[in-house]
């Protein structure tokens, strides 16, 4: 009897520990390719508006976060990955940030799409 209870407890602990949090991210170039920048490069974030400098749009950036157990995600959670993808695509800054949240069962979904830009001056 004790063994059975133990097995159930272990199974529950395993399920809890493996509570999934997945992060998917990518960039796609909008036209011409640019050399990647260092993974931890400096990226300016314009959650609203755009920079005063002249720029061109170079990439589409997507970061998708899903967490089970009704745990939500925010822009701050996605930001490191968003910056990483911007650097990979050779972008200097991020504009046109679009966030969306939804839910499937107990999985909370957060997706952010943005545009990577390159300064011309």
């Amino acid at each position, binding site marked *: 009897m004790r063994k059975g209870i133990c097995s159930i407890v272990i199974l529950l602990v395993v399920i809890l520990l493996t509570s999934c949090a997945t992060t*998917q991210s990518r960039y796609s170039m909008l036209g011409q390719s640019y050399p990647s920048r260092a993974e931890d490069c400096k990226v300016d974030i314009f959650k609203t508006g755009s920079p005063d400098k002249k720029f061109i749009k170079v990439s589409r950036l997507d970061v998708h976060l*899903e967490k089970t157990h009704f745990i939500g995600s925010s822009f701050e959670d996605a930001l490191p990955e968003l910056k990483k993808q911007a650097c990979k695509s050779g972008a200097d800054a991020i504009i046109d940030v679009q966030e969306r949240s939804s839910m499937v069962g107990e999985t909370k979904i957060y997706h952010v799409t943005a545009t990577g830009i390159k300064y011309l001056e």
Partner: protein
Amino acid sequence: MRENRSAMIFPVVLLLVVALAGCASIPTKPEVEGVIFQKPADVVQKAAVDALVVMGFDVKKSDPLYVEGFRPRKVGLFVGSGGETVGIWLESLEPSKTRVRVSTAKSLAGVVGQKNWDAEIRAEMEKILGK
């Protein structure tokens, strides 16, 4: 004896769950009219890929006239999610006219936490293509 049996059942159930979790279903091309976009097939194909990414699918196939994505599985406390496979078929009707058909296949394991993504993917493609 009963204790031994219950101790054996759980690993077997666990193995079965893990084994089933590896299975993915294959979507079948739906016999429906689909949606027609006034855009060339290559532009619509790119929008199909972007729509899958927005919905959290890993793009597994990205052919000129077929795109397929799989949603990674998530283990939940009560109901997990993921495990669906979506197929998007494109048909070039004219140089600037493309028909799109979408179909979601749910897998055997975790079907309770799965959903049909057809409408949301079509809506996202419409948003991207500005229909």
